[in-house]
């Protein structure tokens, strides 16, 4: 189907990166047209992990379909579940108990930290530094252990359900999160010392993969990738859901628009998530963890759309209901899909060796793109 190495009529070299390639972090296939070492065009070929989740959801009930969505962006499983639960709650006008709201936000922010930790390790590994990966996993494993205790799973948690959360927190939850906060504060400076200040790393990141604020908006780039260009796009701030409007945290913005700016945004965003966790961990209200809901959920006829901020950007869930127990149509507006569409624009005219820096700072998760 695809030649391993081919030449175009103008004599440009066409090479394949992926679908099995360590730098694409999954089965992403890029067809790259090269003139010497300069990139002339990047064409993504998707679908190697397409599971047709949207079609599948059309035959699943509103309780069942949430479990499938953990498999989209597996690094933000909690936030995916959260978006779907919010959409069903919006349609049925379910009031979520305060305790559940706080638990949800706590879980979301821990997920965000874990996701950024993995990204940081993998990003450094893409650029040739292997050690940071182990440092990142040291902290990330702690979060996964905390999740495992309460949710029973380490990646696909399926913890959020319409009306609240599946079960109450594990008795050890607060103690272990506090231990994690201590560990994080003791270790985070290592990240800067090891990678951020490294001159080789900076040379490979600065000025690479520039994207202007206008292009960010036009291409629909969201999340830390957009904030690296100075575009305010944090849904938690712009369209607050749950209790985000009552919390103290800053939207991290950088203006350089290159890979290094996007790197800094993600790194600083972890600190903001830590701030949110610190505000909430001692203030979890008592009460129910789930609202009383009917056994069979039926959304009224109509259309419902929710937007949440995942670790990668804006996730939209669009449900069209005909009044039955299953959705008539579901669309997941995944952040990775739109972020990937800007890749060609970002790397065109750059060098092949810089491609991984641009791709790494977009933080692409392929199951999230393919769905």
């Amino acid at each position, binding site marked *: *189907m695809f030649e391993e190495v081919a030449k175009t009529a103008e004599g440009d070299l066409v090479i394949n990166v992926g679908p099995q390639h360590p730098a694409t972090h999954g089965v992403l296939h890029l067809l790259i047209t090269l003139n010497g070492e300069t990139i002339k065009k990047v064409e*993504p*070929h*998707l*679908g190697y992990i*397409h599971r*047709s989740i*949207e*079609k599948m959801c059309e*035959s*699943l009930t509103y309780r069942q379909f949430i479990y499938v969505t953990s498999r989209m962006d597996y690094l933000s499983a909690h936030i995916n579940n959260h978006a779907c639960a919010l959409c069903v709650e919006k349609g049925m006008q379910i009031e979520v108990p305060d305790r559940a709201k706080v638990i949800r936000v706590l879980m979301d922010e821990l997920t965000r930290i874990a996701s950024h930790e993995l990204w940081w390790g993998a990003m450094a590994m893409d650029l040739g530094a292997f050690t940071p990966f182990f440092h990142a996993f040291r902290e990330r494993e702690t979060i996964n252990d905390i999740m495992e205790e309460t949710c029973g799973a380490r990646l696909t948690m399926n913890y959020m359900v319409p009306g609240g959360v599946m079960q109450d927190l594990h008795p050890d939850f607060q103690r272990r999160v506090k231990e994690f906060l201590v560990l994080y504060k003791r270790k985070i400076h290592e990240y800067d010392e090891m990678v951020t200040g490294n001159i080789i790393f900076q040379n490979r990141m600065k000025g690479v993969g520039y994207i202007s604020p206008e*292009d960010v*908006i*036009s*291409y*629909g780039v969201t999340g830390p990738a957009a904030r690296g260009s100075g*575009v*305010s*796009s944090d849904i938690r701030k*712009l369209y607050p859901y749950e209790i985000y409007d009552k919390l103290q945290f800053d939207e991290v913005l950088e203006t350089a628009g290159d890979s290094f700016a996007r790197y800094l945004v993600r790194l600083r965003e972890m600190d903001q998530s830590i701030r949110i966790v610190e505000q909430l961990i001692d203030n979890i209200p008592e009460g129910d963890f789930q609202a009383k809901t009917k056994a069979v959920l039926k959304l009224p006829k*109509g*259309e*419902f*759309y929710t*937007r949440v901020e995942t670790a990668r950007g*804006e996730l*939209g869930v*669009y449900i*069209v209901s005909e009044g039955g127990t299953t959705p*008539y*149509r579901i*669309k997941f*507006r995944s952040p990775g*899909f*739109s972020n*990937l*569409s*800007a890749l060609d*624009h970002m790397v065109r005219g750059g060098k092949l060796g810089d491609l991984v820096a641009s791709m790494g700072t977009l933080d692409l998760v392929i199951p999230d793109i*393919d769905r």
Partner: protein
Amino acid sequence: MTNEELKIQLTALFPTATWEEGTEWPTFQITPAEWSTVANELRTNDALKFDYLFCETCVDWKTHLTMVYHLSSTNFRHNIVVKAKLDRTKPEIATVAGIWRTAEFFEREVYEMYGVNFLGHPDLRLLILPDGWEGKNPMRKDFEDPINMIKL
């Protein structure tokens, strides 16, 4: 602008549009032939400035297809939804990839999943489906695949 103010302004601009009631964001329907001019106006009008297309998708209603565009303004922070009804046997609508670049990928996905032909699209090819895909468009309601799809 609030939803009511938006609605008043948009009604003045597009008198032929039909409005839907009871939605979170102002929602109106236009004909596919109007879409190109409406989209340009939404993007360039100084009081509207819808510069961010945050979702573009299609719904199969068995009798017809409906294109759904979710638009937002990063300047004014207001949102609208625009819909266009397409003929199911020969669905065609103008592309907006030149106005909102993100539409290029969204439209390629809708093209292969629903078979909508986007007139003037710069690169209308399969994106997710494998090359050489033959047969019906998978997201349509009458698509059957007894080997790979399990019905519950």
